[in-house]
Each structure stands twice: as C-alpha cells, then as structure tokens.
C-alpha cells in the first residue's frame, strides 16, 4: 500500500494525547491525596473493605496484557502474522476479563448498598463517602479506558487480519499499544492507592 505516512509525527501526536490523559488522572490522584490527608482514618477503614485478591488478580491481568500487546507488535514486525493475531486477541481477552472482575467487584459493593448517593454512604462518615466517590470515579474512568482500549485493539485485530496493518505499516497498532500501556500505568498507581496503602 502506498501512502505518505509520517511515523514520527503520528507517534508524537499520540504522545500529546497521552499527556492529556496523564493530566486527567494526575488531577484525580491529587484529589485523592488531598482527601486522604484530610480523612486518613476513614479512608483506611473503607479501603480495607476492598477485595485485595481481585485487585491483585486484575493487576496481573493488565500487566500480562501489556506484555501480549508489546509482543504482538514485535512479532508482526518480524512478519509473523498469525502469532501477532493470537497475541493481540489475548490482549483484548485479558482486558475483558479485567472488566468482568471489575463488574463483580462493583456488584458486591452495590449489594451492600455502597454506591454514589446510596443511603448507607449518605448516613455514614463523610470521609467514607469521599473515599467511595473517588473509588467509583477513578476505577470507573479507568474501566472506561480499558473498554475503549479493547474496542480499538479489536479494530486493529481486524485490520491486521485483512492485511491493512502489516509489519511495514503498523502505526495504528503501535499507537494503540502506547494507549494500552498508559492505561496499564494508570492501574499500576490505582492498585496501591486503593488496595495497598490504606
């Protein structure tokens, strides 16, 4: 396929977009830090109610998916299309399992009447309300990113299959990979903030 592509320009554009994402999540992390500083006791009490095992499992899944994403790019670069498709498909699958675990986690909270605006939270201590507000906002926003990542990765999978994305022309896949890794990095910080330090 002949076309004028500017790899460096396209990559820089992707990074510029990633910076806006860093500032978006960074701002929310600051909000978390300020409120943790104000309500340390209530944050700790609420944070210990989260399911560490599920959080740890999800961390492993996302790290593994970052590996499969990076590996799919390297294998496609070497021309191994089938292997690249397998790795790319695994990445999407791992993302979906992550979302399913998140769904289970949120459902358990909902079952205990813990969700934004629920009676339990409105009547409970203020720090707890703030904690769960941040929990649902941050993990929700992150899950939305995982979902969108899965959608774009699936699109890449189809384009690789059709031969529109190849080892010589893989800008789209590389940029999608960058996005997926950033989503992983966001989780690398969310995990200790919500599941470990409290």
């Amino acid at each position: 396929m002949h076309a004028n592509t500017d790899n460096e320009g396209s990559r820089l554009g992707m990074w510029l977009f990633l910076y806006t994402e860093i500032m978006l999540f960074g701002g929310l992390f600051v909000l978390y830090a300020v409120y943790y500083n104000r309500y340390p006791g209530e944050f700790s009490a609420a944070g210990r109610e989260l399911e560490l095992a599920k959080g740890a499992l999800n961390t492993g899944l996302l790290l593994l998916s970052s590996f499969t994403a990076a590996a799919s790019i390297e294998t496609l670069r070497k021309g191994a299309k089938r292997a690249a498709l397998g790795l790319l498909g695994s990445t999407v699958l791992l993302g979906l399992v992550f979302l399913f675990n998140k769904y289970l986690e949120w459902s358990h909270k909902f079952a205990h009447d813990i969700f934004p605006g629920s009676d339990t939270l409105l009547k409970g201590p203020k720090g707890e309300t703030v904690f769960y507000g941040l929990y649902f906002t941050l993990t929700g926003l992150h899950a939305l990113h995982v979902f969108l990542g899965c959608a774009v990765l699936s699109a890449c999978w189809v384009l690789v299959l059709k031969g529109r994305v190849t080892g010589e022309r893989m800008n789209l896949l590389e940029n999608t990979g960058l996005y997926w890794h950033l989503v992983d990095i966001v989780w690398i910080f969310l995990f200790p903030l919500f599941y470990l330090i409290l």
Partner: protein
Amino acid sequence: MTEKPAEKTALSITALLGVLAALLFLTGLSIALAHFYTGPLRVAAALSIAAVKTGLVLIFFMHLRQAGKAVALSFLATVVTLAVFIGLTFADTLYR
C-alpha cells in the same frame, strides 16, 4: 517521505517476558510489603515500587527512549507540570 530504516525499538520476546516477570515480581513485593510493613514509609514504599514499574513499562513496552527528542522533552514537561501542580496543591492544603 522515506522512513528511517533502523529504529532500534525491536525487543525479543524473551526480553519482553523478562520485563513482565519483573513487573509481576514487583507487584508481589508491593503486596507483601503492604501486608507486613506498617511503618511510616508505607505509602512512600508502595508509590516508589509503582514508579519503578511505570519506568519499566515506559522504557521497554512504550520505547520512550527511542521515541525521539520531541517526545522525550514533552514527556518531561508533562511530568514536571504534574509535579508542580501536586507541589502547589499541597503547599496550599497542608499549611492552611
């Protein structure tokens, strides 16, 4: 436009697996630390491990070092901006 032939981003699958193993090990370390250590450096330790993991992802999965000067400088500018933002926020909220 011709493309530069030798963008040295290629990493072997074995090397990528090594990075994954390191990431998983650091996750385990972080969990173990949170479980057994309750001292004053608890938060700092967890966030430091997260920072190291982030470094691994940036360097080996996102090829930050091979992405060119424009990306390197703009990335640095973003991190510094965020750091200033965090610093100013705490300069305000901690000393009110």
